[in-house]
């Protein structure tokens, strides 16, 4: 446990030294402060009677808007935005953890300690996830608190969106670790992981793609890849729907959540297991 805590500390110190963490927190804080200062809502009996944005009155057309509905709309939209941006930033900030560990002159320092290779790799993985989680908790938690302060409306489901985003980050980071163990290159890890994100999102339309295929084997290949890869598009929609309700997206209502989260969890486990196995067999 001491070794794991030391490894986590090192990851956070590195993030701070590389300005990754500070820049992320600074940008998040700026966004939070802007949001807190710019939005002024006049809520009367649970309905929005007036609103000001940057001090300017917003014309509501004389209508009274249900504040609960408005907040839910904002929160679900923001969770969709954060799903993309948060995932990309988290991978960008952590994909180097394995390639840097495997650098000549560095790996010897770590592996000469009485820590097994698998715990060493997993401590880096969990450290990376903790870093991503800290960022998500800060941004989502602050926004949630500000929204509650301004509107007195509290949706705990908005916070749950963070879990769904973190799950996606966990799956993609496991793949980035696998690429890092194999190639020892941060650039390749980043590129392959981002490519995986987009390819998996494209494969959400696997039924249409395979139907357009000329041969049966290629159609099966597309369907197979869809089930092997993480469900990045569905996870994005599921994250938004988790906050805004099943009616947010067309197709979400009949989405098989178990298949989406389950197959992505399998992808995560397979990637991480393979990364650990290769790392434990590698000669340095």
């Amino acid at each position, binding site marked *: 446990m001491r070794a794991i805590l*030391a490894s986590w500390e090192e990851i956070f110190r590195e993030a701070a030294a590389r300005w990754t963490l500070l820049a992320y927190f600074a940008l998040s804080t700026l966004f939070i402060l802007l949001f807190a200062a710019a939005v002024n809502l006049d809520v009367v009996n649970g309905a929005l009677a007036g609103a000001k944005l940057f001090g300017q009155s917003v014309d509501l057309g004389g209508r009274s808007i249900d504040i609960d509905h408005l907040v839910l709309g904002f929160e679900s939209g923001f969770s969709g935005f954060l799903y993309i941006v948060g995932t990309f930033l988290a991978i960008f900030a952590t994909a180097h953890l394995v390639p840097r560990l495997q650098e000549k002159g560095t790996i010897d320092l770590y592996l000469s*300690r*009485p820590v097994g290779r698998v715990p060493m790799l997993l401590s880096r993985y969990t450290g990376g996830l903790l870093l991503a989680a800290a960022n998500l908790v800060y941004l989502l938690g602050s926004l949630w608190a500000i929204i509650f302060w301004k509107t007195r409306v509290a949706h705990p489901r908005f916070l749950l969106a963070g879990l769904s985003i973190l799950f996606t980050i966990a799956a993609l980071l496991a793949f980035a670790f696998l690429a890092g163990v194999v190639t020892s290159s941060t650039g390749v890890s980043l590129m392959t992981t981002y490519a995986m994100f987009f390819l998996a999102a494209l494969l959400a339309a696997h039924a249409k793609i395979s139907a357009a295929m000329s041969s049966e084997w290629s159609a099966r290949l597309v369907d197979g890849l869809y089930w092997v890869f993480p469900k990045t598009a569905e996870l994005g929609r599921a994250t938004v729907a988790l906050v805004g309700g099943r009616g947010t997206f067309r197709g979400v209502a009949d989405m098989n959540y178990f298949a989406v989260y389950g197959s992505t969890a399998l992808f995560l486990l397979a990637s991480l297991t393979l990364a650990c196995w290769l790392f434990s067999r590698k000669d340095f």
Partner: protein
Amino acid sequence: METPPIQAIGLRKVYRTRFGSRRIEALAGIDLDVRPGEIFGLLGPNGAGKTTTVKILLGLTRPTAGEALLAGIPSADPESRRHVGYLPEGHRFPGYLTAAQTLSIFGRMSGLDARTVKGRIPGLLERVRLSDWTHVRVRKFSKGMTQRLGLAAALVHEPDILLLDEPTDGVDPVGRREIRDLLREEARRGATILLNSHLLSEIERTCDRVAVLRQGRVAAQGTIEELTAARTSRYRMVVSSADDALISSLRETGATIERVNGHLVVSTRDLEHVNALVDRVRGRGALLSELSPVRSSLEDIFVDLVAPSPSPPVPLSGSIADAESQTGGRGDGGRQE
């Protein structure tokens, strides 16, 4: 019998090129036993297998065959490294950490609790003359300072076994002496030290025993005295007023002759040959101004063992011969076919 702290039994390592088309035999069967409290030097030219041996001992590389043990525990078991301090060659500590943070993190990775590490850091940095740099980031350190920090990180958990790869690399002469003193202190404390260095003078001054590796095999092993004594049978004569006839006469006997500042320097390895040469010098009326046995340095031994020699090998005795008989008895430390 006490378990040797560092032990290699028939270590073999074959590397394959990326597509497996070529095999490179880095180690061809290494046997080593380092005794408790001993400073043991590992010598050899580049590619002899020194670093591979150390990496296998630490579990960084898996052997193709054979076994490596630290404190009697197989190197594949992380527990074998519980009481081991390692200073790799060309190590790179994270530049964003300060000296104190580096020792804290690597100390805790070695199993120490935070409070113990914190208590040890000032004394340790004092020992390696880095106490003024405690809170400075490692990226600002010179090579010598990084090396001393590496030594402190290897010592932070007070290990019983130290594996040091070129510990004085990049360190100034004063620093080298300090590191030598520090290693002797550690040995007095009871630590067993395996020193891997190209600096033969460093090894000669520091180590109790050495092993010379050549092409993945132990070409010689023993104390410095044993190794040098085995090759002491060389004698040097300085002759004055020698004429050409005497030079020809001496040369006929097979002695090595060279002119230095008007004198004749004659050398040979055989004592009877020396006496015959003395008779010839005196018979021709020349002056014998010096006659002395020449003791080989570790460097001579090293060069003899690792350099490909066109001349037939000199007969050996003692541990070198013993070691070479393991390599096929060719006397040049070559591979056994």
